[in-house]
């Protein structure tokens, strides 16, 4: 394809020969591609950043609990033992754990403080925040009813200070001592939606302590599915099983992070799409601009076209020449537009999205590059064809006479 390479070289020559005009020709396309890319990049980055805030929660687990509005609230209450029964009955579930949310009292520097205590099982649970030190609960902690605790980063700071290791230290909750076995890393979300929210300090204890602490009823059940795709199915089964136990009148609801995740992705996707389409209109404007200048260029170069045709260039040769020129113009414009769009996106992300959380997730480059090339090439094909075909139809006798 040395002929094509030569056409590309000639086209670059033409574009380079008149850089200001080339740039002005591309301007519409640069703005079009730039705005589409900026919107895509901001949308992508924002979606990922928001999802990342939610990331300490496992996508494969749900919590099932009684609805607030009940015909008979006492009937619907979930018992600690329900978890064991559901675990036997739900063969598709990986695990079923009772969950308790308890306010507990402690004293720090001679002051009473309320702590949010949650229960968890052995190993990685719903909250997947990594540990800064220590370990997760193990089966022995559970079976031996050990009074052990995992502190959130916030809890560690408030209860034990930041000095030395927290592991092995004792904290006093409602009058009994708990040994700290693990400390969580600070949440990625910088506080938003995470366990350390709103000044509440969270301490996690093994769920097997719930009966010992004197509770028969629990807040709800954590249902763990083998993977996120089976979560809805397993949670539905859990609700059906609870209704079998407590009666059809008992009402339960299910919450999981997957729904939220899907919802966020859908909403951001629609938003990005709608704004992207509006921005895409400027691509058409840019394309019309390029077609306009290409038509002017064809007229200006009538004599050149005449010479080429007289010498023996076929219509295909002429079409290819002007088509390559339009396409290159668009691809270069698209590249510049992409760089500007990405720069704009970085600015928006660092000025506005950063207000949401300092833990930003960047956009993916793959789709950005693909969309830039696809859109600018598309505009080139769409608006470069007509001037090229028109050039090819020029009559060489008249074209040679053109002054």
């Amino acid at each position, binding site marked *: 394809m040395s002929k094509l390479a*030569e056409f590309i070289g000639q086209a670059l020559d033409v574009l380079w*020969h008149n850089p200001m005009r080339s740039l002005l020709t591309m301007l519409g396309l640069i703005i079009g591609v730039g705005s589409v890319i900026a919107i895509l990049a901001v949308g992508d980055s924002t979606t990922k950043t928001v999802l990342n805030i939610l990331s300490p929660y496992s996508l494969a687990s749900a919590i099932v609990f009684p609805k607030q509005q009940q015909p008979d609230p006492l009937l619907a209450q979930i018992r600690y033992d329900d978890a064991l029964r559901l675990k036997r009955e739900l063969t598709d579930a990986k695990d079923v754990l009772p969950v308790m949310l308890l306010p507990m009292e402690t004293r720090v520097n001679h002051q009473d403080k309320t702590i949010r205590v949650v229960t968890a099982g052995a190993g990685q649970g719903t909250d997947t925040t990594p540990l800064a030190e220590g370990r997760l609960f193990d089966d022995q902690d559970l079976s031996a009813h050990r009074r052990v605790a995992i502190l959130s980063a916030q809890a560690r700071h408030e209860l034990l200070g930041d000095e030395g290791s927290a592991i092995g230290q004792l904290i006093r909750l409602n009058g009994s001592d708990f040994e700290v076995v693990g400390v969580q890393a600070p949440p990625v979300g910088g506080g938003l939606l995470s366990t350390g929210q709103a000044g509440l300090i969270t301490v996690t204890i093994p769920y097997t302590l719930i009966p010992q602490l004197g509770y028969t009823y629990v807040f709800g059940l954590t249902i763990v599915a083998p993977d996120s795709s089976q979560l809805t199915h397993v949670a539905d089964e859990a609700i059906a099983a609870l209704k079998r136990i407590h009666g059809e009148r008992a009402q339960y609801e299910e919450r999981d992070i997957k729904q939220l995740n899907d919802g966020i992705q859908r909403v951001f996707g629609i938003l990005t799409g709608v704004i992207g389409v509006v921005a895409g209109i400027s691509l058409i404007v840019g394309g019309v601009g390029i077609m306009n200048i290409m038509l002017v260029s064809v007229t200006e170069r009538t004599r050149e076209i005449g*010479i080429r045709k*007289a010498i*023996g260039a*076929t*219509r295909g040769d002429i079409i290819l020449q002007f088509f390559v020129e339009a396409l290159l113009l668009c691809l270069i414009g698209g590249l510049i537009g992409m760089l500007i769009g990405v720069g704009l996106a970085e600015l928006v992300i660092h000025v506005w999205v950063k207000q949401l959380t300092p833990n930003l997730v960047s956009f993916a480059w793959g789709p950005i590059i693909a969309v830039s090339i696809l859109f600018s090439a598309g505009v080139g094909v769409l608006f470069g064809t007509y001037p090229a075909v028109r050039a090819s139809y020029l009559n*060489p*006798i008249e074209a*040679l006479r053109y002054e």
Partner: protein
Amino acid sequence: MSEPVVLMEQVSKIYHIGDIEVPALRGVSFTIEPGEYVAIMGPSGSGKSTLMNLIGCLDKPTTGVYRLDGVDVAAQSDQELAAVRLKKLGFVFQGFNLLARTSAVRNVALPLFYVGDKDREAKAMEVLEKVGLADRAYHRPNELSGGQQQRVAIARALVNNPALVLADEPTGNLDSVTAGGIMALFAQLNDEGHTIIMVTHDEDIARYAKRIIRLRDGLVIEDEAVANRTLATVE
């Protein structure tokens, strides 16, 4: 006997301007054999430009037969005519018609580019040498004198080794000294075996050719060998 380069039989060309038919050629017949050097003469309106466009395969006759180097031009599609121009013809224009932003050697190589010849710059260089412009190969047309530009154009016409070199008023834009040089080059090329047709209205220039075909009102009125031919000498 070998095929004539140009064979015209009762060729006519009628233009339509609105509803009016304007006959530019009204039955022209002649043949030109390989190695000939022919001047086509005639006042404006005689059909000389039309005849040149026909010979140059830029246009097709309305009636009659035109064979260029054995190819029936009227039967060719536009696409095929482009190929005929590319392979069998070399054009030399009055206004030189070089690509302005392109160096001399690449102007010469242009037909080879459309042929797809990879070796084109070397071949173009050879022909430039032949017309005496090897040292100006990388200059652009605006850096060359009129005579030099016409030599580049002639080199471009020769680079494909065409059956016919067709020159339209090749000295029209040149002073008489420079014109003499170009005529000397044509004479040399003809001596080397190139078939040349030169369209001109200048009697002095036409006398450099070996044969003159005179047109008037779309008809050949005279076709004869030049008795006392001007012998071109390099200045």
